[in-house]
């Protein structure tokens, strides 16, 4: 742990933490730029960096953007990222009654608390999970992958799990395109050399999250900044609010960590579950949606605690806990870090390095968030129509820079269109991307597992983790099968 800290204590680290966190806050604050999209675009900027610094930059952008989304949620009532939707429900009414400074401050301190607790959980849980994963065989990896897709589909589309599952299996089907690893047979390539090379994760992600978001934003109106007179709020009084709501802080952190660890689910679901729990258990439920401090703390603590937790399975199982963590996982591979159960053996200080990066990023986020509240208001005033061409250029060049194949630019457009159509019909994007990431791993382990099964069909009964994963899959399907789309399924209402 100390070695990792010493390795990071350089001027480069300080410089990168500051600019990357600030860039993340701006990306998150701008409606239309999500954390996933920001990370996918910024990955291309890290190609020439040293591995640890590149991961540091991306994690700081991730931390900054999840936090930055609270700015626009509170001041514009437009969540900068889906993880801040619940924040807007309480933060915006507070801003309307002149408590914008308190709402922004509470969001900052709650995010810092969640981030620190999540960071500690990462350092405690990751080694244990990596140890456990050392005992994983083909069956376990196959069922873990399938469980990831099924549970992510169920949780990211709670009203209509069928659509979540369809998105997940569509992602698995996309992952099947191109040469497979056992016989180098080009599947679904139809003689096309580009398709034989497969569909790249980064172009697919930039298309599904970036271009589709640009298209969605074209159909929506302009947002207006809150103009109510702002009452100041001291840091001490904000800390007082946090202490008075300590039960919410603890509960939301735990919810954030648990939901974050589940493959593909992520910060937005953690935030909603935590907000829902705070509302149900509150002594003053009537204050919710009218500017409840309890609700705001619950949402922001949970989404920030889920962030480091989402990195845990990415590091130890190579299975991302959220969509932005999936980009981070891809970036790790690009920078020669091999996530998975062997990480503690091959790169023993890496988990500690990630822990310190999260601590640095969380502190930088809080300091800059508190100091730069006023300049960030100017950022929020940039009209969307002047932002779109810049984002579109990055959407085109970012994925192209990785492989320098024009085909990848076509993939961006195709997934942009697909993502737009699916999001209009209320399909979640996270399972689609998770499917693309996990497809290769599930395929290989299924075939290896089948050979083992043919040799000794009873072997699976001696594998308790595989049996547990099968039971989780069945439970998710049975519970999800009972869900019925209801009123919350607003027709063509966009962002998922």
């Amino acid at each position: 742990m100390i070695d990792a800290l010493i390795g990071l204590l350089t001027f480069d680290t300080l410089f990168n933490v500051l600019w990357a966190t600030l860039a993340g806050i701006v990306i998150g604050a701008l409606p239309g730029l999500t954390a996933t999209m920001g990370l996918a675009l910024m990955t291309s900027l890290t190609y020439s960096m040293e591995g640890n610094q590149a991961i540091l930059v991306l994690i700081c952008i991730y931390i900054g953007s999840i936090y930055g989304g609270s700015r626009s949620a509170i001041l514009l009532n437009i969540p900068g990222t889906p993880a801040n939707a619940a924040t807007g429900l309480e933060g915006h009414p507070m801003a309307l009654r002149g408590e914008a400074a308190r709402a922004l401050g509470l969001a900052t301190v709650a995010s810092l608390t969640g981030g620190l607790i999540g960071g500690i959980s990462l350092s405690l849980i990751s080694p244990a999970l990596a140890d456990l994963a050392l005992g994983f065989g083909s069956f376990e990896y196959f069922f873990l992958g399938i469980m990831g897709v099924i549970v992510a589909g169920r949780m990211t589309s709670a009203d209509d799990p069928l659509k979540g599952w369809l998105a997940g299996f569509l992602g698995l089907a996309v992952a099947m395109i191109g040469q497979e690893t056992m016989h180098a047979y080009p599947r679904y390539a139809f003689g096309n050399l580009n398709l034989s090379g497969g569909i790249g994760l980064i172009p697919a992600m930039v298309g599904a999250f970036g271009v589709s978001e640009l298209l969605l934003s074209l159909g929506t109106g302009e947002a207006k900044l809150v103009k109510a007179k702002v009452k100041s709020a001291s840091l001490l009084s904000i800390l007082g609010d946090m202490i008075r709501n300590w039960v919410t802080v603890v509960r939301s952190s735990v919810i954030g960590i648990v939901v974050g660890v589940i493959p593909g689910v992520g910060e937005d679901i953690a935030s909603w579950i935590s907000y829902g729990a705070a509302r149900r258990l509150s002594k003053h439920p009537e204050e919710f949606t009218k500017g409840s401090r309890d609700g705001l703390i619950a949402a922001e603590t949970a989404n920030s605690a889920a962030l480091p937790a989402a990195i845990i399975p990415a590091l130890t199982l190579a299975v991302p806990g959220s969509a932005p963590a999936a980009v981070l996982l891809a970036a790790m591979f690009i920078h020669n870090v091999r996530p998975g159960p062997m990480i503690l053996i091959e790169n023993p200080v890496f988990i500690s390095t990630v822990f310190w990066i999260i601590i640095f990023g969380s502190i930088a986020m809080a300091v800059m968030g508190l100091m730069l509240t006023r300049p960030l208001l100017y950022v929020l005033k940039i009209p969307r129509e002047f932002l779109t061409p810049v984002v579109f250029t990055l959407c085109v060049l970012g994925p192209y820079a990785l492989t320098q194949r024009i085909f990848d630019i076509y993939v961006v457009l195709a997934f942009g269109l697909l993502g737009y159509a699916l999001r209009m019909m209320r399909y979640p994007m996270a399972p689609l991307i998770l499917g693309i990431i996990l497809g290769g791993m599930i395929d290989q382990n299924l075939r290896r597992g089948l050979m083992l099964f043919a040799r000794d069909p009873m072997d699976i009964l001696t594998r308790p983790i595989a049996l547990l994963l099968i039971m989780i899959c069945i439970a998710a399907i049975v519970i999800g099968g009972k869900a019925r789309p209801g009123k919350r399924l607003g027709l063509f209402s966009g962002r998922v």
Partner: protein
Amino acid sequence: MNELNYGRRLIAADLLAGLAFLVIGIGALVAALSMPTFVDRGADPLTAPGIFPAFVSAVIMLLGAVLVLRSLRSRATSSEEQDAPLNLRPVAIGLVLMTVAILGIGKLPFGVVMAGFCIAYFAAFVTWRGSRVEIIRRLTAALVTTLIAATLIPLAFEHIFLVRLP
């Protein structure tokens, strides 16, 4: 299966999407079953490349069929939010501009393509009415944006990240 209450348009969209998933599933399943097993080369048939694609396409087919059946059994309810008119015109214009720009990449210099995209985009989406000061402000913003998108970002990729532009 219970009757479901949600908007007419979503039911129609679900029906079409379900049919599309059904067709994709059937097509992918047929293609997966026709993939070689490499048994003639001494490979274990359980390592055949088509096994997992066949499983995935069968699941897509099944889920697509469930979506079709559910849509057919659903009862639409009218609500203002659900049946509000869709503002698809700007989306269609944006999509056309993006497609034309992407198809132009590799055929024209990258900066020219992006500058063309920016000009067309601003012409379509920025309001050019109002006072002189407002128009000058918007024009300046458009020029700065075009400079960033068509020159600064490509230059940064070319010279800092050593990417050969398309």
